């Protein structure tokens, strides 16, 4: 009896050891062929740029080429849904981001994937805060000015966005709700035309990601506040919305690498380690600082918790925005 138990135990230990060895071996042989990175957006733009930024140093570290595959469609849903059906062997990765992975689950009834269960969250690349920006000739010189202006003229001010359900739209709604103001939402086809309209003074304000920074530094726009918990490294003089009494507007547009659910943990850990190492290099840190981006050296678990938190947070924001559930 005792012997039997011991032999079971031995066998079990052996099994665990072998599994561990196999896993280690897997992580050591991985990657043995080129890796595809799916970008569910057309070339150009933030997600594509993030993918191209990481793909080269990562492929150097892994010793295998990383091929970027753009599979655009339905605000990132199409490519993301296709991605979740790829084999979970670490050879197909996704450049995940705020819209498809945390916002769209609340916007689309037929998403084609489960935002939590269908993914292994590998590593956060970085997230960027958004800024409250106004045209250079705007009478408002502070967030307080703008709020007063809006309160005096309810329904008169226009805020822009890159489309219904876009991050600028949702951030705008967050801001309007927190500041208790009533303004009209004007949509543009993407961030760039919206920024052009703001520069030209056709709209009054926008909560815009750091793509607006060059306009601010060149004096085409004024940044009145940053919508995050801390001030931004790139514009340290600009106060947070919390500081000026409009609390709770935290915008973090994240970009991170994901793998299909069931990808072996050693592979996920290996990728996480390499990506974080790349992000910690002085060269990359300098670049991130310039773009006001923050990286965190998070473990896969910390990244997963962050994304899950964002998914929950945007449920209410999407509801408030009035953006319709579409199928």
């Amino acid at each position: 009896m005792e012997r039997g138990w011991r032999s079971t135990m031995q066998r079990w230990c052996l099994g665990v050891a072998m599994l561990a060895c196999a896993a280690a071996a897997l992580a050591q042989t991985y990657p043995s062929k080129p890796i595809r990175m799916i970008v569910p957006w057309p070339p150009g733009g933030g997600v594509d740029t993030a993918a191209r930024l990481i793909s080269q140093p990562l492929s150097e570290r892994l010793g295998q080429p990383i091929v970027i595959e753009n599979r655009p469609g339905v605000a990132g849903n199409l490519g993301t849904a296709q991605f979740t059906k790829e084999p979970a062997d670490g050879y197909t990765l996704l450049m995940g981001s705020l819209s498809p992975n945390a916002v769209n689950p609340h916007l689309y009834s037929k998403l084609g994937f489960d935002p939590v269960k269908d993914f292994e969250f590998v590593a956060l690349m970085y997230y960027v805060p958004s800024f409250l920006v106004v045209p250079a000739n705007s009478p408002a010189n502070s967030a307080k000015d703008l709020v007063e202006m809006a309160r005096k003229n309810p329904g008169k001010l226009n805020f822009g966005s890159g489309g219904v359900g876009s991050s600028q739209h949702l951030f705008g709604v967050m801001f309007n709700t927190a500041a208790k103001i009533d303004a009209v939402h004007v949509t543009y086809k993407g961030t760039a035309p919206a920024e052009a309209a703001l520069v030209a003074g056709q709209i009054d304000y926008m909560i815009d990601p750091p793509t607006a920074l060059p306009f601010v530094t060149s004096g085409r726009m004024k940044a009145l506040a940053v919508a995050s918990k801390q001030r931004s490294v790139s514009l340290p003089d600009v106060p947070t919305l919390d500081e000026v009494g409009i609390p709770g507007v935290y915008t973090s547009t994240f970009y991170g690498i994901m793998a299909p659910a069931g990808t072996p943990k050693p592979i996920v850990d290996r990728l996480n380690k390499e990506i974080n190492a790349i992000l910690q290099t002085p060269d990359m840190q300098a670049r991130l600082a310039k773009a006001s981006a923050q990286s965190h050296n998070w473990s896969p678990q910390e990244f997963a918790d962050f994304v899950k938190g964002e998914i929950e947070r945007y449920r209410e924001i999407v509801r408030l925005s009035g953006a319709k559930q579409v199928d």
Partner: protein
Amino acid sequence: MDLLANLALGFGAALTPLNLLYALLGTLVGTLIGVLPGIGPVATVAMLLPVTYGLPPLTALIMLAGIYYGASYGGSTTAILVNLPGEMSSVITVIDGHQMARQGRAGVALCVAALGSLFAGCVATMVIAAFAPPLAEFALRFDAAEYFSLMVLGLVSAIALAHGSLLRAVLVTLLGLLLGIVGTDPNTGIARFSFEIPELMDGIGFVAITMGLFAFAEIAINLESAARRGAIAERISRLWIGWPEFRQAFPAVLRGTAVGSILGIFPGGGATLSAFASYTVEKKVAKDPSRFGKGAIEGVAGPESANNAGAQTSFIPMLTLGIPSNAVMALMIGAMIIHDIQPGPDVIRKQPELFWGLIASMWIGNVMLVVLNLPLIGIWVRLLRVPYRLLYPVIVLVCTIGAFSANNNMFDVWVAMAFGALGYVLLKLDCEPAPLLLGYILGPMLEDNLRRALVLSRGDFTVFFTRPVSLAMLLAAAALLALVLAPAIRRRRDTVFAERE
């Protein structure tokens, strides 16, 4: 004086052996890939972006710009040779360019396209060098109301495109507008005409439409009659442009350059509109407009110059403000970020050698393009000697893969098949497909700007008439419409019966 100093700085930066090599490489690769239908400048630039990571920033941008010019010109090549527009702006080139090819003048058409593009490119680059900042300010003054009026003007020119029945042109344009609306409404997020198909939520792809409408339908029509099949192969005469043709084409090139340089500065479709606008202008100033659609050289020279001038001046918003005016520009901005250059209004001040180097490289790129393509014309034209029974399966294959490659999705191939059938029916019923594409391109922009203008004016329709620029464009549209309709009405009175032989 400043300008000269700046240009000297630019040429100094651009004229290094390395940069010249990559400019040549870019235009070469761009031309070769651009000739493949369905793989336009955007796909080409995206694909070759990683190649440029290891290069110095200016060299990388010069190469990417070269790819852009090359791919654009490659699109015109297929438009002329096999009736297949490689991108939006060469839709117009198909109309008279392919007719010229059918008459054995493919070499002349390609030659005019190349030389017209070179001239337009050089002039437009000059415009950028001298006036980029004020032009960018001017473009910024365009609000939604102005854009709407510009689109209306564009639509009227679609009707002027038709060389057959006006009513048919109107109907085809309307259908195109409707097709452009398919997909998710950017204002409400509601999917329109998508019939629960996720792929349709992003609308119908341009590549799929052109592959179907032009390639598949044209091939089906050609296969119906033996007479049309052999048409091209048998008569090929000269490759080089003659003096009378040059005299005919040159004024068109001048006008096209002017039209393109102006329209190109407007982000979102300006450069595309320019080819259509130029064609309308040419048809209106021609002594005998009935030649158009039957191989008029001005119908190639004008639009080709306009589209290249527009392609150059569309750099203005990006260079001066960091605002991409089309997908290629968005990619270039992405490339700049990867090279650690923050695109935006600061580039001109902080990195003048980059800014002026890029402008200088536009000249270099345009010259390279012609140097490269003039010898290629002979080869392209020889391709037409391939018997049609061997040629058309190649076109079908390349278009099929091209349609797939647009989104790496077979759905686009099926859409192309549907449009092949539609295009066949339209051609059978004497309806030209070109206005459909213009409607399709303008439709979403027209609606988007109309709605935005009304949101901004809080529902006041008079904005379109109280804003001077908008009013001027609407008046121009009305005048053009009158010009188009007047002869038609007169003709109908005179020859109701003779109109249909």
